[in-house]
C-alpha cells in the first residue's frame, strides 16, 4: 500500500516536472519522433521492397527455357515438377514508320506468369488474328476496336493484314508487342522459324534454397534435352531465396547509426537536464527521497516522454513509408515493424537515461547547498596565476571545464556531420553527366551499331553484314564531314559463331575483340592464367578469353588453356571455319577497362583476323563526339544518314541522359533525405547543449552582470564558447567526413562506377558551416533577450526560482 502511495507521488512529481521544463521535453520528444519515424521509414522501405519484389515475382516466371523444339516443349509440358508454364515464341523486331514491332506468340495469358493483359477481346485463335496495343493502332491510324483490320509491313518485306481479336493493356511508346495465334506461330512468316521458349514456375521453388532450386531448374531442362545455356533461371527470383547480406548490412548500418545518434541526443538532453537540476535533486534527497526513488523519478520522465512521442513518430513513419513505396505496403509487415520500432526506441530511451538517472540518484543532500557539484573542479589551478579573463577567454574556460559535456555534444554533432559530409561528397562526386555517359557514351554523344533486324535478316550472321562494310571508311568520312563532329571512334568487333565440342556447344553466336599492336603489347598486365606469346597470337591460331567468370555463371563450365574451339565467319566470299586454341584468360580488370567495346568472350590481334578476310573493316560501332553547341544539329544529320542504311541504328546520349538523370535524382533524393534527418539530430543536440548551457548559468551570468560585465561582453563570452564547439566540430567533421567521402568515391570507382570522381562538396560544406555558426548565434541572442525580460535582481536570486 505504502509502495503505491510513493509510486503515485513519484508519478505526480514526474508529470509536474515535465510541465515545468518544456524546452527539454520538446528536445527529447523531437529526437524520439525523428528516430522512430526514421526507423519506421527505413524498415518499411526495406520490407516494402521485398514485398514488392515478391508480388512482382508472383506474376513472373522462375525459369525460362529457350531455343526449344516442339519435342522439348512437349516434354516440359509433361514434367510434373513444373507448376505453371507458358509457351512463347518471339520474332524479329520490325521497324515501322517511327516505331518498332516485336511479334509474339503466347499459349495463354495467366496471372501466374503475366506476360500481358487483355483490355478487351481475346487472344488470337485464327492464323489471321492479332492482339495489339491501343497506342500502336493510334500510330497506324486504325480505330482500336476488335474486328478491325490492320496491315503490318515486316522487316523482311512481307506485308500482311490481320483482324484485331483483342486489345492489350499498356501504353507503349516506340516499341510494341504484337500477339499472334498458335497457328500463326507454327506457320506464319514472322514466327514459324523462331524457336519456342517456355516460361515456368516450379513446384515448391519458394521453399527451396538457392542452389537446390537452380539445380532443379537445370535438371528439368536436361531431362527435356535442353542444353544448360538455354536454361535461364530468374536471378531476381533466386535472390529472394537467399538473404542478401549486402542489403542487410546496409540497412543494419543505417539503422545502427540512427540509433546511436538517437542515444547520444537523448542521453545528452537528459544528462544536461539532470546536471541542471542537481540543486533540486539535492533538496529532494534532503527531505528523504531514496536513491531508488530518485532513479525512478528520472526514468519515469523518460518513459512519459517516450509514450507521448513514439506513437507520433511511428505514425509519421508509416505515412511517409507508405508514400515512398505504396506498391510494397503490407498491413502485416507494418504491424510487425510498428512493434519492433516501439520496443527498440523504448529500449534506446531507457538506455539513454540510465546514466543520467544514476547521476541523479547519486546526488548527496549536501549538494543542494552548493552552487556547483564539487567534483567538477580541481583543488587548484596548476599553471598560470591568472588566465586570460577576456570574455572570449572566459568562454573557452567554461567550455573546457566540463569536458564530458563537450565531448557528448561533439560526438553527436560530429557523427551527424561526418555522415552529412560523406553523403554530400558522394553527391558532389557523382558526375551526372558521366553517369549517363557510361558504356558507349563515355566520350561520345551518339553511337551507331548494326540494327537487330538487319542482323536477323543476314544469313551469314554479323560478319555477313560486316563484309558489306556499311561502316567503312567512306561512311566514317561522311560523318566526320558533318559540321560540329569533333571525333569519330571506330569500335571493332568481329562477329563469329563458335563450336566447342568438349561441352557440346555448337553454332553459338559471339564476337572476337580485335586488338591493335599497342593493345596487344599492354595485354600482359591483364593475364589471369596462361601466357601471352606475341608470336603465337599473331599466327591467328590462338585466342584469349575474357570474362571467364561470367562464362562459368552462364554455362556451368569455364574455358581452359589449351581448349580447342572452332570459329565460323563470313570471309567475304563464303562461310569459313578455323580452329583456334585458348592461350590465356584475362582478368576482370580487362572487362572493366574495355566495357565499351567488349561484346563477346574472345580477344585476339586484329592483324591475323584481317588476313582471313577479303574485307578490311571490322567496325561494329561508330562513336561520335560533337561540339557541344552543335550536338542537336549533328543528331538531325546523323538520323538522316542512318535512315538511308536500314542495317544501322542510331542511339543518342540525350535519351540515355533522360533515363539516367531520373535514376540519379531518385538516389540523391533518398541520400539527402537521410543526411538531412541525421543533421537534424545533430543540430538538435547542439541546440540543447547551448540552451541548457545558457539557461543553467542564468544566475552566474547575472552575477557577472552585477559585477560589471556588460551585455556585449557576456554575448561575446557565450559566443566564444559556442564558437569553440563549432570550430572543433567543423574540424572533426570536415577532416573525417571528407576522408570517408574520398574513400567511398575511390571504392566505388574501383568497382566500375567510373562516374564517381572525388569532388569536395563546397556548397554543402559552406551551408553546413553557416548553419552551425548561425544556430549558436541565434540561440545566444534569443536567450539573452529572454533573460533581459527578467530583472537582474530576480536572476541573481538564483536557479531555485
Amino acid at each position, binding site marked *: 500500500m505504502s509502495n503505491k502511495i510513493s509510486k503515485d507521488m513519484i508519478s505526480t512529481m514526474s508529470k509536474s516536472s515535465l510541465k515545468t521544463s518544456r524546452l527539454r521535453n520538446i528536445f527529447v520528444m523531437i529526437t524520439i519522433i525523428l528516430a522512430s519515424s526514421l526507423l519506421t521509414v527505413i524498415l518499411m522501405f526495406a520490407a516494402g521492397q521485398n514485398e514488392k519484389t515478391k508480388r512482382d515475382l508472383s506474376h513472373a516466371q522462375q525459369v525460362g527455357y529457350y531455343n526449344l523444339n516442339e519435342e522439348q516443349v512437349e516434354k516440359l509440358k509433361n514434367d510434373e515438377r513444373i507448376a505453371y508454364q507458358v509457351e512463347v515464341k518471339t520474332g524479329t523486331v520490325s521497324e515501322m514508320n517511327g516505331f518498332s514491332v516485336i511479334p509474339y506468340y503466347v499459349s495463354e495469358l495467366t496471372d501466374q506468369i503475366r506476360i500481358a493483359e487483355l483490355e478487351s477481346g481475346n487472344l488470337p485463335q485464327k492464323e489471321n488474328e492479332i492482339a495489339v496495343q491501343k497506342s500502336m493502332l493510334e500510330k497506324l491510324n486504325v480505330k482500336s476496336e476488335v474486328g478491325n483490320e490492320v496491315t503490318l509491313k515486316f522487316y523482311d518485306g512481307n506485308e500482311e493484314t490481320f483482324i484485331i481479336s483483342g486489345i492489350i493493356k499498356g501504353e507503349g511508346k516506340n516499341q510494341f508487342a504484337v500477339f499472334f495465334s498458335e497457328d500463326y506461330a507454327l506457320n506464319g512468316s514472322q514466327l514459324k522459324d523462331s524457336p519456342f521458349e517456355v516460361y515456368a514456375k516450379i513446384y515448391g521453388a519458394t521453399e527451396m534454397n538457392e542452389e537446390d532450386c537452380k539445380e532443379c531448374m537445370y535438371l528439368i531442362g536436361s531431362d527435356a534435352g535442353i542444353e544448360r545455356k538455354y536454361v535461364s533461371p530468374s536471378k531476381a527470383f533466386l535472390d529472394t531465396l537467399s538473404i542478401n547480406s549486402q542489403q542487410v548490412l546496409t540497412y543494419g548500418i543505417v539503422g545502427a547509426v540512427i540509433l546511436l545518434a538517437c542515444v547520444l541526443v537523448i542521453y545528452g538532453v537528459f544528462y544536461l537536464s539532470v546536471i541542471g537540476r542537481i540543486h533540486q535533486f539535492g533538496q529532494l534527497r534532503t527531505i528523504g527521497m531514496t536513491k531508488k526513488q530518485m532513479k525512478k523519478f528520472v526514468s519515469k520522465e523518460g518513459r512519459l516522454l517516450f509514450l507521448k512521442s513514439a506513437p507520433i513518430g511511428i505514425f509519421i513513419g508509416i505515412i511517409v513509408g507508405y508514400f515512398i513505396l505504396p506498391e510494397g505496403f503490407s498491413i502485416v509487415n507494418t504491424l510487425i515493424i510498428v512493434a519492433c520500432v516501439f520496443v527498440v526506441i523504448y529500449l534506446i530511451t531507457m538506455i539513454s537515461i540510465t546514466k543520467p538517472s544514476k547521476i541523479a540518484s547519486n546526488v548527496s543532500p549536501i549538494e543542494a547547498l552548493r552552487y556547483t557539484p564539487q567534483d567538477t573542479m580541481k583543488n587548484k589551478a596548476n599553471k598560470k*596565476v591568472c588566465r586570460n579573463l577576456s570574455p572570449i577567454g572566459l568562454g573557452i574556460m567554461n567550455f573546457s571545464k566540463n569536458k564530458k559535456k563537450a565531448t557528448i555534444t561533439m560526438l553527436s554533432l560530429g557523427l551527424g556531420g561526418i555522415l552529412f559530409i560523406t553523403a554530400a561528397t558522394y553527391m558532389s562526386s557523382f558526375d551526372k553527366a558521366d553517369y549517363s555517359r557510361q558504356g558507349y557514351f563515355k566520350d561520345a554523344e551518339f553511337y551507331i551499331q548494326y540494327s537487330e533486324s538487319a542482323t536477323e535478316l543476314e544469313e551469314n550472321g554479323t560478319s555477313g553484314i560486316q563484309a558489306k562494310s556499311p561502316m567503312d571508311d567512306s561512311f566514317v568520312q561522311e560523318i566526320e564531314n558533318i559540321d560540329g563532329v569533333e571525333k569519330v571512334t571506330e569500335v571493332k568487333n568481329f562477329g563469329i559463331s563458335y563450336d566447342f565440342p568438349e561441352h557440346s556447344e555448337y553454332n553459338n553466336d559471339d564476337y572476337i575483340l580485335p586488338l591493335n599492336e599497342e593493345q596487344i603489347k599492354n595485354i600482359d598486365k591483364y593475364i589471369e592464367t596462361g601466357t601471352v606469346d606475341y608470336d603465337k597470337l599473331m599466327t591467328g591460331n590462338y585466342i584469349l578469353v575474357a570474362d571467364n567468370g561470367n562464362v562459368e555463371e552462364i554455362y556451368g563450365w569455364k574455358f581452359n588453356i589449351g581448349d580447342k574451339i572452332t570459329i565460323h565467319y563470313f570471309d567475304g566470299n563464303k562461310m569459313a571455319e578455323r580452329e583456334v586454341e585458348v592461350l590465356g584468360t584475362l582478368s576482370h580488370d580487362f572487362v572493366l577497362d574495355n566495357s565499351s567495346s567488349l561484346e563477346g568472350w574472345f580477344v585476339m590481334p586484329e592483324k591475323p583476323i584481317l588476313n582471313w578476310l577479303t574485307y578490311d573493316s571490322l567496325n561494329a560501332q561508330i562513336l561520335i563526339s560533337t561540339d557541344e553547341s552543335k550536338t542537336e544539329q549533328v543528331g538531325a544529320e546523323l538520323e538522316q544518314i542512318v535512315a538511308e542504311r536500314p542495317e544501322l541504328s542510331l542511339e543518342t546520349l540525350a535519351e540515355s541522359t533522360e533515363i539516367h538523370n531520373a535514376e540519379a535524382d531518385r538516389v540523391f533524393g533518398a541520400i539527402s533525405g537521410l543526411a538531412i534527418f541525421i543533421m537534424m539530430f545533430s543540430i538538435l543536440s547542439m541546440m540543447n547543449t547551448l540552451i541548457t548551457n545558457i539557461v543553467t548559468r542564468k544566475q552566474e551570468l547575472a552575477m557577472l552582470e552585477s559585477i560589471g560585465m556588460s551585455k556585449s561582453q557576456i554575448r561575446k563570452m557565450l559566443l566564444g564558447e559556442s564558437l569553440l564547439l563549432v570550430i572543433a566540430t567543423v574540424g572533426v567533421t570536415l577532416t573525417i567526413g571528407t576522408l570517408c567521402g574520398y574513400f567511398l568515391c575511390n571504392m566505388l570507382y574501383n568497382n566500375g562506377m567510373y562516374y564517381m570522381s572525388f569532388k569536395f562538396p563546397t556548397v554543402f560544406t559552406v551551408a553546413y558551416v553557416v548553419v552551425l555558426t548561425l544556430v549558436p548565434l541565434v540561440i545566444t541572442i534569443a536567450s539573452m533577450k529572454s533573460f533581459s525580460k527578467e530583472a*537582474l535582481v530576480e536572476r541573481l536570486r538564483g536557479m531555485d526560482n
Partner: protein
Amino acid sequence: MSILNATHLKKYYGQNESLVKALDDVSVKVEKGQFVAIIGTSGSGKSTLLNMLGGLDNPTSGNVEIESRNLEKMSEEELTVFRRRRIGFIFQNYNLIPYLTAYENIVLPVRLDNKREDKSLLNEIVKFLELDGKLANYPSHLSGGQQQRVAIARALISKPAIILADEPTGNLDTNTSDKVIDLLKMTSKKFNQTIVMITHNPEIAEKADVKIRIEDGKILVKE
C-alpha cells in the same frame, strides 16, 4: 561630501488592492568613508533598497545619485560599466564564479574593464584579508569565510566609490561573521572606503558608523 544620495525612492508592485509598497518614499544620504548598516526584518524592504542603490533594480520613482551621477539617466550599458568601475558588491552567497580561481575572481572586474589590476593594491588587500596562499584555489575549495573574503577583495580591487554588501554574513557562523564584519569595518577605515551593508542582525549593525532601520518600506530611525 556625500557619495550616495538617494531621494524619494519608491518601489511598488501590483495595483489597487494588491498593491505592495516594497519601498515607500525612502531617502538616504551616505558620506565618504562611512560604514552604514541598514537593518530590518525579513521583508522590510532592505534588500530592495540596496538593489536600487546599486542600480540592479529600477525604482518606480525617485533618484539615486552616486558621486553626483544619476543612475536613472544612464543607459543599461552605461550603468553596467559604471557598476564595474564605481560600485562593489558583496553578496550573502558570495557569488564567486566557480571555474575561476580566487585570484581570477578578485581581478575579474578590472580585467573586464580591459585594464590590469594595481599589483600593490592587490597585494595589500590580499594581505589584509589574509588570503595569501589561497589565491590559486577554486571557490569550492575555500571555506565560507574565505569565499566571503575573496568577494570583499573583488569589491575592493577596482577602488569603487561605494561597496554594497547584502547580508554578507548570512551564510557564516558567528565566529566567522564577527571576523568578516571587523574586516569590513577595518577596510572602511584603512581604505577610506564607503560601505553600505544590510543585515537583520542588530549586533552586527551595532558595529557600523551609521544605522538605518527600515520597516514596511519606510525608514524608521537613522542613528
